[in-house]
């Protein structure tokens, strides 16, 4: 199986019926639903809200460790991250540099103390903690508003990511294509669905309904146990892929040269591809409608006598449109590295079209890394970049990303709520170490696997988002184990699912617990709260699903904006709340609002400075998260110092040994 074949036809080749990937997906979905049903039956019924939203603080080591790890590792870990490794090379090892200490920072920094404070206040959500710790309903409502604001956008983006992944998985499967045709015909004429790809819509419905259904039905326990399964699938996927990738690269290596060393030395020779448009001329007149399909490879010689043949891949979604004896202005990618060209010709063989000549060319070089004769750009920093002349990862961004992962990861409310759910400190200690090993087994190996992908499957630069499933199929089929592809492709799917279900529950808990029960109807019956929890989870999920029918364009940018925004709002107030007895409501509210405003202003500044909200203004070249966190911590400290001391009974309750009526 070749990479070219992968782009022009289904990722998992279907023989018209059930493929290994489809079978895997169905089994996987079945397992998820089974777990949700079991979780629902196991619910003890003592306190519905506590059980539904936080599992009665009963998580043991494996449940806590894997739900924490799986929620933190969003779909980006298995789609965006491999894509970036493929596109920029070894520098991604530094990009994720702070994952060195990610588990101990995100779990150990606030975990034990946050869990204790949540117990003393009886809190089951993050806004709950904030509200009770400062005895301020308005502060709690501010926290709910920010969580709902950020997470709703994020949820829509994650729904889109999951649907696109499912579409890749099912593309070309006969049953799926028939259903797509039927859906397309049924929706014709409905303005809401105008311009929506029926295949995407079908996947959105399949993915969305599955996640909403099992989350609604099973609540936190279902989310946790499906997270455990998803976490296992993720790590198994990586553990299987790593030796396969090294084995296949090793087959190309000269004697005495190790597999990975061969891959690195090949990467050192690579130069970035050129992207743009080209005119391809046929020696014979073309039939009307003759097309150059997306993904096709063309080895075309120049018009001049003796000109060297150049290798192109078609990346035009519509394919080239024939005109006379050629295809003018076809979008393509030119492979510029000799070794890559040889690899493609070897992979593709007769599928490379060689009868065309080149006409007019309009190709663009990368902004960084494409200088004539330059080598080593994929094995050193800052890495090649198509758009920035400072490269992919200049020093300022290296530092920013060190903050971004470990520090901003500590400030995610979705992680905080898990830190409120473990059963005792022994579980916390063991879980931190478990997650440290778990992440070590996933992230650095991913860098190795997709550096190998660059060598094994050149020419995927224009569709690097599909490198994960494409590589899974390439690896398994080349070692005669195609059935394994389904398991490997399930890994990124699992990652998206585990993030979506957690966010869904965060939003519905905010609405039911923090707004309805604590502000509108404190005396609401257990039965009413139960049905409202089901209803809100369902409604929030359905709303996100509808939002994702016509999703915003900047998927990854939204995820980055919301993740860093939540950290800028929540980290400083929560750290002050649990570690600083002198902290008061004025200071922590100022920290939350200050972080929100500073972070947002960097993005709004991007509209003027860079022409887009999602290309934020970088103060001294640093990412907005650093500005947001700095302002949040400083504002929180200064305003607290200027304000009155907190009430004595609150300090006693949360900071002193005998301060709690429940006894600490």
């Amino acid at each position, binding site marked *: 199986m070749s990479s070219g074949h992968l782009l022009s036809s289904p990722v998992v080749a279907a023989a018209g019926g059930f493929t290994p990937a489809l079978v895997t997906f169905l089994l996987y979905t079945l397992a998820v639903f089974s777990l949700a049903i079991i979780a629902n039956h196991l619910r003890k019924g003592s306190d519905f809200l506590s059980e539904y939203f936080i599992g009665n603080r009963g998580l043991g080591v494996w449940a806590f460790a894997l739900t924490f790890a799986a929620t933190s590792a969003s779909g980006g870990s298995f789609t965006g991250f491999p894509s970036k490794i493929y596109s920029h090379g070894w520098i991604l090892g530094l990009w994720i*540099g702070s994952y060195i200490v990610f588990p101990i920072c995100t779990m150990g920094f606030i975990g034990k103390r946050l869990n204790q404070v949540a117990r003393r*206040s009886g809190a089951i959500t993050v806004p709950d903690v904030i509200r009770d710790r400062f*005895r301020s309903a308005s502060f709690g409502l501010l926290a709910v508003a920010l969580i709902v604001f950020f997470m709703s956008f994020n949820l829509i983006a994650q729904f889109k990511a999951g649907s696109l992944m499912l579409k890749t998985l099912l593309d070309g499967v006969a049953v799926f294509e028939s259903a797509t045709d039927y859906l397309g015909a049924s929706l014709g004429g409905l303005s809401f669905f105008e311009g929506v790809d029926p295949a995407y819509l079908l996947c959105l419905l399949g993915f969305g309904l599955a996640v909403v259904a099992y989350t609604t039905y099973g609540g936190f326990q279902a989310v946790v146990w499906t997270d455990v399964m998803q976490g296992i699938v993720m790590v198994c996927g990586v553990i299987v892929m790593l030796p396969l990738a090294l084995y296949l690269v090793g087959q190309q290596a000269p004697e005495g040269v190790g597999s990975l*060393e061969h891959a*690195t030395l090949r990467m050192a020779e690579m130069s970035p591809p050129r992207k743009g448009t080209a005119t391809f001329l046929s020696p014979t007149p073309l039939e009307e409608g003759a097309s150059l399909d997306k993904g096709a490879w063309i080895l075309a010689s120049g018009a001049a006598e003796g000109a060297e043949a150049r290798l192109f891949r078609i990346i035009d979604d519509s394919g080239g449109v024939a005109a006379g004896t050629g295809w003018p202005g076809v979008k393509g990618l030119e492979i510029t590295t000799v070794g890559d060209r040889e690899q493609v010709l070897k992979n593709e063989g007769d599928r490379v079209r060689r009868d065309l000549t080149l006409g007019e060319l309009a190709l663009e070089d990368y902004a960084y890394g494409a200088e004539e004769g330059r080598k080593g750009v994929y*094995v050193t920093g800052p890495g090649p970049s198509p758009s920035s002349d400072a490269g992919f990862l200049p020093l300022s961004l290296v530092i920013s990303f060190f903050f971004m992962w470990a520090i901003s990861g500590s400030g995610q409310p979705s992680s905080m709520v898990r830190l409120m759910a473990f059963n005792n400190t022994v579980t916390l200690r063991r879980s931190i*170490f478990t997650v*440290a090993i778990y992440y070590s087994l996933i992230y650095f190996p991913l860098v190795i696997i997709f550096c190998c992908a660059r060598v094994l499957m050149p020419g995927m630069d224009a569709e690097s988002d599909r490198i994960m499933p494409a590589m899974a199929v390439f690896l398994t089929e080349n070692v005669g184990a195609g059935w394994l592809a389904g398991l490997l492709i399930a890994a990124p799917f699992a990652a998206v699912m585990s993030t979506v279900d957690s966010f869904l529950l965060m939003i519905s808990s905010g609405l039911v617990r923090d707004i309805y029960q604590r502000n509108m109807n404190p005396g609401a019956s257990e039965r009413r709260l139960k049905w409202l929890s089901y209803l809100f989870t369902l409604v929030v999920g359905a709303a996100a699903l509808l939002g994702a029918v016509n999703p915003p364009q900047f998927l990854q940018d939204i995820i980055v904006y919301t993740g860093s925004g939540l950290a800028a709002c929540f980290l400083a107030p929560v750290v002050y709340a*649990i570690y600083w007895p002198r902290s008061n409501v004025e200071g922590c509210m100022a920290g939350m609002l200050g972080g929100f405003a500073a972070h947002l202003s960097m993005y709004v500044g991007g509209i003027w400075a860079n022409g887009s909200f999602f290309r934020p203004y970088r103060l001294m070249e640093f990412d907005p998260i650093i500005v947001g966190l700095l302002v949040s911590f400083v504002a929180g400290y200064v305003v607290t110092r200027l304000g009155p001391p907190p009430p004595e009974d609150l300090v006693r309750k949360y900071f002193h040994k005998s301060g709690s009526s*429940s006894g600490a």
Partner: protein
Amino acid sequence: MNAPENNPEPENTPWDPVFLDSRREAFIILMLWVAALLWAVPYCYLNGFPDTFDENEFSTVWGIPSWLFWGIAVPWLLADVFTLWFCFFYMKDGDLGEDAPAEAETAAGEVSP
């Protein structure tokens, strides 16, 4: 963040040991993050960001570019060893307490102690 100077010290009520342990552990974790930053970023920047790439100077360790091996892979391993020590030999266990009932409140949302 020391004990609040303006905060009236409740009589005969010592600071909660879980609070004190957690705060000390949090400080150590913060220092670990700083140490990781001070190792990884300068090392990788000084050794992995050459002005011009020289094939003869470029080296690998087990196939990984040496600047990344010593700048990220090795500290990653050491951080795991540190985590092992921290979790099993340093971090203190403590009684986190039982769930307290949520604070009483009025229908209007005003919380009362």
